[in-house]
């Protein structure tokens, strides 16, 4: 188990997990999804999380995304202990600092790409004009200029995922959490998506934590964290991507 300081010293630890555990259920039937995780993700990092099904990586992502709370340990987001926040405070944290990309895209049906991208800005009470302009920008940034009025059912899987990425980055989040963003796509589309994500990481400095099964996709990250049976089995620095 490599425990070398994989985030460079001097880089601020944006996310810090300390002995985080997650238990579902009680007594003998209790399921230990996470058994004490220590993880640090620095500002501007691109981290890939890998591991077999049931290794706890999805649970970890839910906790990182403030969708779930740990049963033990501490989760510090910019020094704030998320496990002590209320449901609404966590929602505000998601609203203001996090962006999500899911395997199944999770766009609103029968709603245009533009409106899907505008959605997070609505909850941030951004004025309509600015909202629209930023949504156009975000769609352009993911290469969907001209597709603004199309609804998800009129878009290919790769395009839908790009809309989802546009929705995630339109708020300029600190962290983008991607849960198997290429899981439903063929390898050519997957590479396109990864390039979009890598570009945002590099150009905008958005911190990315991404779950993936695919080593080719993980290769885009700077660091790979491997989960097994609820613990971090290994962390490795990716040499070739700098």
């Amino acid at each position: 188990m490599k425990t070398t300081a994989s985030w460079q010293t001097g880089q601020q630890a944006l996310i810090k997990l300390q002995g985080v555990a997650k238990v579902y259920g009680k007594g003998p039937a209790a399921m230990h999804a996470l058994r004490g995780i220590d993880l640090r993700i620095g500002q501007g990092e691109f981290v890939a999380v890998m591991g077999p099904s049931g290794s706890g990586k999805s649970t970890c992502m839910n906790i990182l995304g403030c969708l779930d709370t740990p049963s033990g340990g501490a989760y510090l987001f910019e020094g704030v202990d998320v496990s002590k926040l209320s449901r609404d405070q966590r929602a505000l944290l998601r609203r203001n600092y996090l962006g999500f990309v899911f395997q199944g895209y999770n766009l609103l049906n029968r709603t245009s790409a533009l409106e899907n991208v505008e959605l997070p800005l609505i909850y941030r009470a951004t004025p309509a004009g600015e909202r629209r302009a930023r949504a156009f920008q975000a769609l352009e940034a993911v290469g969907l200029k001209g597709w603004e009025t199309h609804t998800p059912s009129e878009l290919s899987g790769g395009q839908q995922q790009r809309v989802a990425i546009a929705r995630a980055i339109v708020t300029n989040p600190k962290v983008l959490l991607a849960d198997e963003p290429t899981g439903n796509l063929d390898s050519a589309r997957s590479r396109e998506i990864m390039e979009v994500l890598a570009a945002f990481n590099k150009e905008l400095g958005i911190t990315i934590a991404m779950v993936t099964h695919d080593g080719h996709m993980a290769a885009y990250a700077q660091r790979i964290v491997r989960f097994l049976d609820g613990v971090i089995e290994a962390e490795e620095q990716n040499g070739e991507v700098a």
Partner: protein
Amino acid sequence: MLWETILLALREIRRNIMRSSLTILGIVIGVAAVITMVTLGGGATAKVTSDIAKLGTNLLLVRPGQGFRGPGRTRSTADMFEVDDAEAIARDISGLTGVAPRASQGIQAIYGNQNWSTTVTGSTNAYLQVRNWALENGRQFTDGELRAGKAVCMLGATVRKELFGSQNPINAMIRLERLSCQVIGLLESKGQSSFGTDQDDFVLIPLRTLQRRIAGNTDVSAIYVSAQDGVSTKKVEQDIERLMRERRHISSADEDDFHVRDMQELVSTMTGTTRVLTGLLGAVAAVSLLVGGIGIMNIMLVSVTERTREIGIRLAIGALERDVLIQFLVEAVVLSSSGGLAGVLLGIVGAIVGARVLGVPFVFDPGIVVISFAVSGAVGVIFGYFPARRAGQLDPIEALRHE
């Protein structure tokens, strides 16, 4: 933000336009029923009030006997009034606009080969004034005719129609049993009273004529008294009671052998009855509003289940519990109040048609429109709250996993 939530709600409703229409049908019917019932009830009340007002406003009726035992029936043991009694009332009691002694009996009226069984009423010109009768044609009695008991008469609209059809009866001679009588005036029609009797079915002749030449006595069976506007009919009633007890030598231990009835009381009794009926009908109609609300709750619950994933997405990207709750609540309120709006329109149309069919006036009451519209909105809030709260409290992880 609220405006956008409303737009969003409208879009959701439009997406399921068929289901939305069926959902609000209960509210539409409920609101329409309440408005129709209450408006028609208001019209009926107005009709009753105006019918009774036609009897004469501020009218008091003094009759021999104790209390009211149905129209035209008095206790036989009580003495009838005399003309003097009416004159005493007119002379001794202040605040009156008219006093009319009246006697009447059933009679056959004959003109040519036409024969009509009616009532002959003997009184003075004051009778027309206190009862709010207007002359359609001709003239009233002269003082000379009243004093001398001349054989002249005015006809109610029904008698005129039965005897003369479309002919002009002025100056024609009709026979009231053996008395030959000249028609000098025609009375305007008042139609049916609220009690269902034909008010136009009578012949009016001078009281003295009736007493001398038909009845053969000096009885006065009733005295109509009308009070000035602003004068308490209660006070007039008490004054008349005191005067009559004195004139009829009733000792303080004995009860009145006459009674004074205030038409105002009758008005409030009758309108009270129609109001109660209106209230009952409205309440029954309001039950369907409740049923409509349950329909909305049901559909909103279905909608929350169907849109679990959408709710999950919204929560994940930063919607607060409150944001989602408000979204669904607004949707329920927009649904129910659009039902309310449709119900208001339908109800007003229903009331106009109903008023025409039932022959009551259409009395538009903005109050009930505002109230029932507000209630429809409130139904949305009340029945939409539970599904909306459920939506807001969904676990985002579970919701996102929902297929």
